[in-house]
């Protein structure tokens, strides 16, 4: 048995804690960074990602290590990975419309494409995935299906997060009906609604 595995086993044996990496996946602007900040702030006191109305604000994988969560007497230590939103198209003109200069927009587009490639690479390396979906939008997007299909193929545990339930147009039940094979938690990362339910689900996941 490699030394790393022995150390990991001893650590978990004596500390009685689960430790794993959780990746936040999803389409662009579903609220992944808002959720990452909420989790990080609740358990470590500080935020980890910047948030913006302009798409592709997160263009590299942002990580926060050793976040300790304790729910109902269960302790887990996790490395939280806020992934760039995945999409099949990146048009710099969209950023120009949001007020960036052409040069800034083209730079952002280039960085966004690199971020998407990086997020896809990480699909094979996370222990658990939180797939964040916007509850006001149709959940049957190809990006959601591709992300879930890849995670399922690798048997990586998935928790679907139906986010933005504070919005009037939100229909989180559509997400639950679309993917009945996975546990779905309804939250508002912005308002903190139902966030403890998500922590309980994370603490009970079998990574």
């Amino acid at each position, binding site marked *: 048995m490699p030394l790393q595995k022995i150390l990991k086993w001893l650590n978990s044996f004596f500390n009685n804690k689960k430790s794993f990496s959780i990746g936040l996946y999803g389409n662009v602007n579903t609220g992944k960074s808002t959720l990452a900040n909420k989790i990080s702030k609740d358990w470590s006191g500080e935020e980890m990602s910047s948030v913006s109305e302009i798409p592709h604000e997160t263009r590299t994988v942002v990580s926060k290590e050793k976040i300790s969560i304790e729910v109902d007497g269960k302790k887990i230590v996790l490395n939280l990975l806020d992934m760039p939103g995945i999409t099949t198209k*990146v048009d710099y003109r969209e950023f120009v419309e949001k007020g960036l200069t052409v040069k800034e927009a083209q730079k952002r587009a280039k960085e966004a*494409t690199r971020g*998407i490639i990086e997020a896809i690479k990480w699909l094979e390396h996370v222990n658990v995935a939180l797939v964040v979906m916007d509850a006001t939008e149709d959940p049957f997007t190809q990006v959601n*299906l591709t992300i879930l299909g890849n995670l399922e193929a690798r048997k990586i545990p998935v928790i679907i997060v139906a986010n933005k339930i504070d919005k009037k147009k939100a229909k989180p039940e559509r997400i639950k009906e679309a993917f009945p094979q996975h546990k779905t938690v309804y939250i508002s990362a912005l308002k903190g609604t139902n966030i403890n339910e998500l922590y309980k689900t994370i603490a009970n996941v079998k990574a």
Partner: protein
Amino acid sequence: MGVNIEFLAGNILKSMNSEEKIDYVLSNVRKDTIIVLEDALTPIEEKQLITQTMKSVSVKFTGIEVCTIGREQNDLKNQLVKILGGKASGLTIVGPSSIVKKIKRDPDKIRLLAGK
């Protein structure tokens, strides 16, 4: 100006590996063609397609729209059908995002809005 649509039959797709399929699809989509694949791409192939697309994004080529429906389940029945040379299920459509404005998926049908 018209829109080019190319249908790729399942027997042609069977002779290609994943890399060849993605190269073929992407090179044609970049020439403003909408490709319809008689056999659906797998999620792993879709992941590779998105990765290759992102590597190709430029000022002129802004990416793709892709939609898969009716993908087969990888259960025993379907594996047997494949082993016995039966037809795989599903359908994938890939088009340039500059032409394919919107793809709407219903459980068993795809509605595609295209135009230049």
